[in-house]
């Protein structure tokens, strides 16, 4: 961590020199807003899968938002590595000094993502996102089913094949469980998939609606919308299922709970005052406060892992844009400009968001507003959720 801070300070100084030099020679990546990037050179990785691995690593570093891939001459950081015997040994140096030298195990693809994240952390001191997995809904095959992929769109895996409706998947903090709504029984029930055990079970099947499940950060509870008592309200249940504790008492509809990372609060959507708005309340129930989004229609809040931000979508003129607000100051930034953009989900670095637009998934850098499509080969993709 100390070396990360040191290199970040050195890098910030060096990057301005580097960018002005590179700009005259080739086209720099065009970004909206501010976002310092480091010049990095990736030597071809050696060993079996070296060619494919190099491409994956280079793509990971580009997606991180922290790097511009350059030639060895203009690079501040230089990356080397080789695959052998089911692991990847990688190193990073700047000038003659080595700042990272480690071995990563797992599949070649997983090891490469771990290497990318280690590079990001060594240089910036912040967590990388290459190891992120994304669960989402796709109606590619007709019915809405759940799928899982790596952040870069690879490693696609179909999780459900019910020919029914599967909606709103969300990971737990550990990333091994996924809660979602399924109409498999004919009714909207909440199910939990255990990725490790490759099984699933129904955890909520009260009369009426069971929807929008979200795990508490410690994984012990699930917040969700139920209508069993005669209105659509927020409740929590034990993560394994069980009796429901009611959180809200309004005449309107409540949906989309998201926990603060310390588990003490829940942000959610309510139309109790006439249109869909975001509110925050204690996760054990009690007084709620409206969260001002400067919009008459705000839904789908997602609380950032560092606790400082809410991402959500706002509706204007029939379109939907992705916005974030700093919770303390309420300062809002709208990150997208056109189209129907839905379901923002924070990555673990509290900087990148994944969202859906026109059936495709995108990675959005909240710092630069740069947007990259995460192509997984499927059409009609919605409701992404990122592992933390």
């Amino acid at each position, binding site marked *: 961590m100390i070396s990360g801070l040191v290199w970040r300070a050195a890098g910030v100084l060096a990057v301005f020199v580097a960018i002005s030099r590179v700009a005259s020679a080739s086209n720099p990546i065009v970004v909206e807003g501010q976002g310092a990037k480091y010049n990095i050179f990736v030597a071809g990785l050696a060993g079996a899968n070296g060619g494919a691995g190099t491409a994956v690593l280079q793509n990971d570093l580009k997606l991180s938002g922290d790097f511009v891939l350059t030639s060895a001459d203009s690079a501040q950081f230089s990356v080397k590595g080789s695959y052998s015997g089911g692991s990847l040994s990688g190193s990073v140096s700047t000038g003659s000094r080595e700042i990272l030298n480690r071995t990563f195990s797992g599949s070649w693809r997983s090891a490469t993502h771990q290497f990318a994240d280690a590079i990001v952390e060594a240089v910036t001191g912040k967590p990388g996102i290459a190891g992120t997995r994304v669960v989402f809904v796709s109606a590619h095959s007709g019915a*809405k089913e759940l799928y899982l992929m790596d952040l870069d769109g690879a490693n696609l895996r179909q999780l459900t094949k019910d020919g029914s*409706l599967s*909606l*709103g998947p969300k990971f737990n903090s550990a990333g091994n469980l996924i809660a979602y*709504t399924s109409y498999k*029984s*004919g*009714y*909207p029930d909440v199910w939990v998939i255990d990725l490790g055990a490759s099984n699933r079970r129904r955890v909520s*099947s*009260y*009369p*009426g*609606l069971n*929807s*929008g499940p979200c795990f508490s950060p410690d994984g012990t509870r699930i917040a969700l*919308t139920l*209508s*069993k*008592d*005669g*209105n*659509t309200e927020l409740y929590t249940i034990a993560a394994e299922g069980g009796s429901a504790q*009611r*959180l*809200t*008492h*309004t*005449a*309107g*509809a*409540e*949906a*989309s709970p998201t926990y603060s990372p310390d588990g003490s609060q829940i942000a959610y*959507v*309510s*139309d*109790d*005052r*006439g*249109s*869909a708005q975001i*509110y925050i*309340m204690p996760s054990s*129930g*009690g*007084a*709620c406060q409206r969260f001002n989004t400067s919009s008459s*229609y705000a*839904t*789908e809040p997602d609380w950032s892992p560092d606790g400082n931000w809410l991402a959500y*979508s706002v*509706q204007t003129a*029939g379109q*939907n844009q992705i916005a974030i607000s700093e919770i303390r100051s309420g300062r809002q930034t709208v990150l997208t400009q056109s189209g129907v953009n*839905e*379901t923002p989900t924070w990555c673990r670095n509290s900087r990148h968001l994944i969202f859906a637009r026109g059936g495709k998934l995108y990675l959005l850098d909240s710092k630069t507003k740069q947007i990259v499509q995460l192509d997984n080969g499927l059409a009609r993709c*919605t*409701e992404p959720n990122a592992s933390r």
Partner: protein
Amino acid sequence: MNHKSLLLVSLSLALAFGGCSRSIKKTDGTDGATFGDGSESLPNTALADRDSKINPENADYSTLSAYVVYFDFDSFAVKASERPKLEKIAAWLGENAGAKVVLAGHTDSRGTVQYNLALGERRAIATRDYLLGLGVDASRLTTISYGEERPAQQGDNETAWQANRRCATGVIR
């Protein structure tokens, strides 16, 4: 129950309702009949337990298709224009004593998936509450929301949106 526990119950109820509770949703210039029966109380008639013989997928939506209830954008108020349809449904239930119905709430494609699921259910519940007010027994009414997932009409235009903001009544015999 002794007096002390009664006091505790009323205290905790007061605390709960003092929190995130409000008397009535604004109805944006419509007729104000949010709950269908004109009352200002929270809808709180618990839903009947699921009937294991009912699968909403098998409901027959054609028999009562003339009585689909339509809603304004982002509203679950049962409009005056829609109430005669609910009277027809109540009458039909009176004549078909063995039948149960599924009230399926839907939304247009605007807005987002999860909120639309909640709004669709709220529309089904508003419809249910109106029928309860007309004397229909709660055990004959099952609510379900399909949110924006099953539009009656495709398209991103006002005609399609209007057609999709609805509560359809499906018959289970």
